[in-house]
C-alpha cells in the first residue's frame, strides 16, 4: 500500500494551483538539467540526434492526429452508448466491444496488411492513426459514458422541469459537467496513447522508436540513444499531464466552495 503523503489531502484550488506550478518548475528544471548533462557528456550526439528528432516529429504528427480521432470517437460513442435510439446505442456498443477486445498491434496489422486484401490500401500514417484512434476511442467511450452517468440525476430533472430540449440538456448542462469529471481519465488515456504510438514503427513509419533502433544499429550508442528516446516520451507525457490539470482546474473552478 502507498504511504499517505504528508500534506497531499484534497486541498483547496489555490493550493492545487500552487502545487502544479511547483511541479512544472521542478520538472522543467530536471529536464533542462538532464538535457544539458546529456549534451555535455555525449559528444557524439549530433551524429544520431537529428534522425531521432525527425522521428519525434513523426511521433508528434501521429499523436496529434490519433488524439483527435480518439477524442472524437470517445465522445460520439460514449454518448451513443447512452442514447435512447436503439440502432445508435447498438452501433456504439459494437464498436466499443470490438476495439476494446482486440490488441492494438493486431488492429494495426489489419489496417495496414489485411485491408489491401479487400482493396483498401492505407498509407502507414493513415493506418497508424486510424488503428490508434479507434482503439483508444473505445476506451475513451467508457470514460465519457462514466462521466456522463456521474452527473447527478437532479441536473437532468431540472432540465426537464425547465422544459429544455434534449440536445440542449446534453450540450449545455450535462456535457459541461461531465467534461470536468472525464478529464483525469482522458488525460491518462492520452498519455497511454502517446506511448502506444511506438507501435507504428511496425508498419514502417519512422517515429522516435524506429529512428532510435535504426540509429542504434548504425552507431551502437545504445545508452545515449535510448536515454534520449525515453526522455522525449517523458516530455510529451508531461505536456499532456499539465494540460489536463490546467483544463481540470478550469472546468472545476466554480464547483468548490470559495474559502
Amino acid at each position: 500500500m502507498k504511504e499517505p503523503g504528508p500534506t497531499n489531502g484534497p486541498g483547496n484550488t489555490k493550493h492545487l494551483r500552487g502545487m502544479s506550478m511547483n511541479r512544472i518548475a521542478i520538472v522543467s528544471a530536471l529536464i533542462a538539467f538532464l538535457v544539458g548533462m546529456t549534451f555535455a557528456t555525449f559528444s557524439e550526439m549530433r551524429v544520431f540526434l537529428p534522425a531521432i528528432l525527425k522521428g519525434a516529429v513523426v511521433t508528434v504528427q501521429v499523436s496529434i492526429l490519433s488524439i483527435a480521432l480518439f477524442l472524437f470517437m470517445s465522445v460520439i460513442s460514449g454518448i451513443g452508448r447512452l442514447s435512447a435510439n436503439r440502432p445508435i446505442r447498438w452501433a456504439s456498443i459494437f464498436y466499443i466491444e470490438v476495439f476494446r477486445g482486440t490488441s492494438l498491434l493486431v488492429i494495426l496489422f489489419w489496417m495496414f496488411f489485411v485491408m489491401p486484401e479487400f482493396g483498401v490500401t492505407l498509407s502507414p500514417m493513415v493506418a497508424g492513426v486510424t488503428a490508434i484512434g479507434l482503439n483508444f476511442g473505445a476506451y475513451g467511450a467508457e470514460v465519457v459514458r462514466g462521466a456522463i452517468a456521474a452527473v447527478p440525476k437532479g441536473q437532468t430533472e431540472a432540465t426537464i422541469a425547465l422544459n429544455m430540449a434534449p440536445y440542449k440538456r446534453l450540450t449545455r448542462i450535462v456535457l459541461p459537467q461531465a467534461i470536468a469529471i472525464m478529464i483525469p481519465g482522458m488525460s491518462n488515456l492520452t498519455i497511454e496513447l502517446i506511448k502506444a504510438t511506438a507501435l507504428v514503427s511496425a508498419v514502417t513509419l519512422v517515429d522516435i522508436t524506429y529512428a532510435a533502433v535504426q540509429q542504434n544499429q548504425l552507431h551502437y550508442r545504445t545508452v545515449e540513444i535510448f536515454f534520449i528516446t525515453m526522455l522525449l516520451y517523458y516530455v510529451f507525457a508531461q505536456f499532456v499531464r499539465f494540460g489536463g490539470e490546467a483544463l481540470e482546474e478550469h472546468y472545476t473552478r466554480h464547483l468548490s466552495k470559495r474559502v
Partner: protein
Amino acid sequence: MTHPMIQFDKVLKAYGALQVLKDLDFSVDNGEVVSIIGPSGSGKTTVLRVLMTLEGIQGGTMYVNGEPLNKMNVDGQLVDASKAHIRRIRSKIGMVFQSFNLFPHMTALDNCNESPIHTQGKSKAEATEESMRLLEMVGLAEKANHYPSQLSGGQQQRVAIARTLAMHPEILLFDEPTSALDPEMVGEVLEVIRDLAKSGDYTMLLVTHQMGFAREVSDRVCFFDGGKMVEQGKPDDLFGNPQHDRLKQFLSKVLEAG
C-alpha cells in the same frame, strides 16, 4: 366551461410490483394552493414527479387546464402523447426541488436565463431584465453573478424559485422545498413561497412536512397514505377536525415530534 388546472384521473404509478399511486383521482383548481401531507413513502413526491413527467405512469390520465398531458387527442381518440405534445403541455408546469438542482457551472443569473433563452428563444437582454427582476423579488439581485457554490442553501433555493418563475409556468410544484436547509434558512424560503401563494398568480402544489406553514398558506390540504388520498379539506377543518384515524394518528405523531 372551466377546467380544473390539474386533474388526475385514475392515475396508476407502480415500481415493479409496488403500487405507489393507486388509481388516484385528484384535482386542483386554477389559482388554488394545495398542500400534500402524509407519512414517508405515502406517494407525495410521486404525485409531483409524475405530473412533471419525470416519471411515466402505468395507467390513467393527467390533465393540465383541460388538456391531457400523458395522452393526446387524435381524431377524437386519446392516444399516448408524443414528445412534442408533452413538451408543449409541460411548459405550463415548473418545479422546485428539495435539493435545489441549480446548474453548478452557471451563475445565479445564467441559471435563471437558461430556459428563457434556450427554450423560449428570448434575447439575452430581455431574459436578463426579467431574471434580474425575479432575483430582486427573492432578495438576491446582488448575488446575480455568484455561482451556486458561493451561495447558502437558502439562497440557492431562492435562486431555484426565481429560475422556475422565469419560464412563466402557470403551475408551481414544490417538493419539500425547505427540508434540505439549515433551520435558520427555512424562514427566508418560506417567505418567498408565502408571497407566491398570496399573489394568486399561480396554481400551487406543495409537499411539506411543515404543518404550520401548510395550514397558513393553503386553500386546501390533502392527506395521503399508501398511495391514496385519504382525506382532504380546508386547513382548519383538516387539522382541527380530522375524520380518519390514520390522519389523526399522523397528526398526533407530527405534533409530538414538534
